[in-house]
C-alpha cells in the first residue's frame, strides 16, 4: 500500500514538480507529496474554469441568429451551496495533509544525540560552528543523523534556505531560531539567504556538505584543528571564512568596502575629513569597531567582527602579503 502510494506520488511528481531540486532531507518527500496533491487539484480547477470560459464563449456568443440570451435562472441556491461546499471540503483536506507534514518539519526536539550546529549569519556570509569545535563557512552534516541548527544573526534578519532539504528558517537578531531535520542524501547542496539583507544579499551563499557516515564527518572535523603553519595562512583563512572577501576584494576590483589589495600602508581619506595610514592599529580598530573611522566614499555598513588576537595578527600578515604581490 505504502509502496504503491509512493510510486503514484513519484509518477505525479514527474509532471507536476519536475522543477523541484533533489530531495535531500527526510521531510522532502512529504513536502513534494503535498505539492503534487495541490498541484493536480489546482490543475483540475483551472482546467474547469478555462474550459467553461471557452465553451460558453463559443456556444453562447451573440450572433445575428442568436441576439438575445436564453431564459435561465438568476440564482440557484442549491448549486451555489454545492460550489461553496466542495471547496470548503477540499480546503479541509489540503489543510490536513499539509499540516501533518509541517508538524514533522517543525519538530523542536532533535533528541539527546543530535548533531548540533551553531549558525551565525551576518552581512553577507554564513558561519557554522560544528560539534567538536570546528567552525567553517560550510555546513557539514551526516546522513541519517538528526540535526539541530541553532541560529543567530549579528546584524539584520537573514533566512537560511536549503532548497534541496525543503527547509527555510529566518535568522533574527536578538534571539535564537531553530531548525531540526535529518539529512537523507549524501552530497553537496546549496545554502542561500532568502530574506533581503542588503547589497550582496544574492551572493550570501554557502554549501551544505552531507557526509555519508559519521567517520567521514569526524575525519573532516579533525583535519582543520591542527595549528596553521604561518600567520599569513591564518589571515587568508579568516579572510575567506568570515566573508571579508565579499566586500573587500583581493584583486583590486571595487566592492562594498575598499579593496584589500595594496591596502596595507596606504593613506586613506576618511569620511569625517581626516586621513589615516593603514597600519596595525587601524586594521585592528576597523575589525573590532568598524564604524569608528570610515574611509571616505564608502557606506558605514560593516558589522564588528569579533576575532581572536592571533586571527587579527593573521589578517595583518595577510594584508601585508597582498601588498607585496603573490
Amino acid at each position, binding site marked *: 500500500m505504502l509502496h504503491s502510494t509512493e510510486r503514484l506520488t513519484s509518477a505525479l511528481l514527474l509532471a507536476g*514538480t519536475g*522543477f523541484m531540486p533533489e530531495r535531500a532531507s527526510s521531510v522532502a518527500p512529504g*513536502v513534494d507529496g*503535498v*505539492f503534487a496533491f*495541490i498541484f493536480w487539484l*489546482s490543475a483540475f*480547477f483551472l482546467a474547469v474554469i478555462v474550459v467553461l*470560459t471557452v465553451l*460558453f*464563449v463559443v456556444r*453562447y*456568443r*451573440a450572433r445575428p441568429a*442568436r441576439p*438575445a*440570451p*436564453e431564459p*435561465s435562472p*438568476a*440564482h*440557484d441556491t442549491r448549486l*451555489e451551496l454545492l*460550489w461553496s461546499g*466542495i*471547496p470548503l471540503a477540499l*480546503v479541509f483536506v*489540503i*489543510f490536513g*495533509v*499539509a*499540516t*501533518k*507534514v*509541517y*508538524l514533522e*518539519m517543525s519538530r*523542536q526536539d532533535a533528541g539527546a544525540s543530535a548533531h548540533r550546529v551553531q549558525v551565525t549569519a551576518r552581512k553577507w556570509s554564513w558561519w557554522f560552528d560544528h560539534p567538536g569545535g570546528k567552525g567553517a563557512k560550510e555546513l557539514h552534516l551526516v546522513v541519517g543523523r538528526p540535526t539541530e541548527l541553532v541560529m543567530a544573526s549579528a546584524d*539584520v*534578519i537573514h*533566512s537560511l*534556505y536549503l*532548497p534541496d532539504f525543503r527547509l*527555510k528558517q529566518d535568522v*533574527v*537578531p*536578538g*534571539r535564537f531560531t531553530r531548525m531540526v531535520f535529518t539529512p537523507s542524501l549524501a552530497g553537496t547542496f546549496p545554502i*542561500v539567504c532568502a*530574506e*533581503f539583507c*542588503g*547589497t*550582496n*544579499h*544574492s*551572493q550570501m551563499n554557502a554549501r551544505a556538505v552531507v557526509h555519508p557516515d559519521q567517520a567521514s564527518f569526524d575525519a573532516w572535523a579533525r583535519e582543520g584543528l591542527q595549528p596553521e603553519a604561518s600567520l599569513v595562512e591564518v589571515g587568508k583563512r579568516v579572510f575567506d571564512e568570515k566573508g571579508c572577501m565579499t566586500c573587500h576584494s583581493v584583486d583590486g576590483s571595487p566592492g562594498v568596502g575598499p579593496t584589500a589589495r595594496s591596502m596595507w600602508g596606504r593613506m586613506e581619506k576618511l569620511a569625517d575629513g581626516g586621513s589615516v595610514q593603514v597600519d596595525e592599529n587601524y586594521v585592528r580598530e576597523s575589525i573590532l569597531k568598524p564604524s569608528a573611522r570610515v574611509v571616505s566614499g564608502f*557606506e*558605514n*555598513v560593516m558589522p564588528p567582527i569579533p576575532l581572536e588576537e592571533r586571527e587579527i595578527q593573521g589578517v595583518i600578515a595577510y594584508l601585508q602579503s597582498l601588498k607585496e604581490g603573490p
Partner: protein
Amino acid sequence: MSTAQAVPAAAGESYLHHGRGVRSWLLTLDHKRIGIMYLVLVIGALFLGGVFAMVLRLHLWSPGGALVSNDAYNKLFTLHGAVMVFLFVIPGIPSALGNFVVPLQVGAKDVAFPRVNLLSFYLYLAGALLFVGALVAGGLDTGWTLYPPYSLEDARGLGILLALTGVFLAGFSSILTGVNFIATIHKMRPPRMGWFDLPLFLWALYATGIIQIIATPVLGITVALGFLERLFHLGIFLPEYGGDPVLFQHFFWFYSHPAVYIMILPAMGIVSEVVSVFSRKPIFGYRFIAMSSIAIAVIGFLVWGHHMFVSGQSRWTNVIFSFLTLLVAIPSAIKTFNWLATMYKGAIVLKTPMIYVLTFFAIFGVGGLTGLFLGALATDVPLHDTYFVVAHFHFVMVGAVVTAFLAGLHYWWPKMTGRMYDERLGRISAALVFLGFNLTFIPQFLAGVAGMPRRYATYAAAFQGMNRLSTVGAMVLALGMLIAAWSLLGSLFRGRRAPANPWGAASLEWAAASPPVHDNFESPPAVVYAYDYSGLELISEEAGWARAGGTSR
C-alpha cells in the same frame, strides 16, 4: 462649497466644461474631476513602476546582472514595489475609477463629503511627491516591506524617512476615501434603491472601505513608529535597543495582507459588472457574490500571519493562520463559479472590456490556486520568499487587478470622456497583455519551485532560461499596455462621440449623459435593479441603448 460650484450648471453642459482653467480643476469638489485627476496620477505611477520593472527584467537577462550594480538593483526593486503598491494598485480602482463611478451608480450628485474627497486627493499627491523625493534623495533599498532592523539602520539615509512619510500620507488618503465611499453608499442612495439593487461594484467598494478604515490606521502607526525609531532609537523595533523586529512584521502584515483585498475586491466588482453586461444577462447569484465580498474582507483580517510562517513564530500559531488563510479560497471560488454561470446561456458580446474579463478568469484562477501552495504550511516553507511568491502575487496584484482595471477603464471610458475607443486596438492590447503577462510570470513559478529566492540581483546560471523567458514576456506585456494607452489617448482626438449607454447596461451611471453634466443627472433617474436588462433596446451604434417606454420598477 466654493464659489465656482455655486453657479447652477447650464443644462447639457458636461462636467468637463463646467468651469474652465487650471484652478477649476485643482480646487474642484466634483467627484468626477477628482476621479480624473486621480486617474492621471495613478497611471503616471503605473508608468513609473513599469519603467522600473523593465530595467529590473533587463538586468536579470544574465546571471551576473546585465545592467546595474547590486545596490542600484536593490533600490530599483524597492521603488518598483513601493510605487506600484502604494501609488498604483491600492488607489487605482477605488480612488480613480471608484470616485468617478460611485456617486453616479447610487444616483447621487456627489460623494457624501466632497471636501474630504479633495483633501484625500491632495494627501495622495503629497505622498506621491514624497516618494519622488525619496528617489531623488538617493533612493531606498529596503524592499517595499520595510523590514527592520535593516530598514532602520543608521546607514539608511533621508530616503527611508521620506518614504515612510509618503506611505503615511497615502494611507491617510486611503482611509478618507473609504469613509467617503461607505457614507455615500449608505446615505446618498435614493429612497427606493435597496441594498440588493446596488451594482456589485458598490458592494465590492463597501467591503474595501471596511478594510481601508480598519486596517490602514495600523499601517499609519507602524510607519510612524518606524520613522521615530529611525530618528530617536525608541527600542520598539530595533533589537539593540530592546525592540522586537518581528512585532513590525505583525503590524505591517495586519495592514498589508488586507491591503491585497483592497486591491482585488474592487477588481472583482468590475468583473461582476462587465460579465453581466456583456453576457446581456443578470448577474448569477447576486447575494452570494455580494456576501462573498464581505466574507473576504472579514476573513482577510485574520490571515496576516501567513507571511511569517518561517519568521520564528510558534508552530501552532502557524497552524491556525494556515487554516484561516485557506478559507479565503471559498468566497473566491463562489465568485468565480457565479461569474461563469452568468455567461451560461447568455448572449456574449466580445468587446474589449469583456475580453479583459475573460483573461481575468484564467489569471485570477492561477493566482488564487497558487495561493493554496502558500497557505498550506508544508509547501509554504520551501516556497516562501522565492520567485514562486513573486509570481503568485503578481498574478493576483498585476494580472488580475491590472486586467480588471483595464477592463473597467475601457468600460467607463465613454462615460468619462464622451468618446469611444478603437475596438480593434483594444482587443489587440488585451490579447498582448494576456500573452505577455503569462510569459513573464509562469517561468517565475518554475524558478521559485527550483529554489530561486526573490530580491536577487544576481542568480545561479541554472535559472537563466527561465529569467530570459520572463524578460521577453515583460516586453510583450509592456507593448500591450502601450497599445492600450495609445488607443485610449487617441480616442480623445479621433474617437466617435459616445452615446449615454453604449453597452446596454442597466446601472444608473448609464442613465447620465456621456460625459455627465456637473450635477450628474439632469433629472432624477428611474431606479431599477442594477442588472435588470428588460426593455433595453439597441437604437443604433451611434445612439446606443435605451429603455423602451422608460419603465421602472
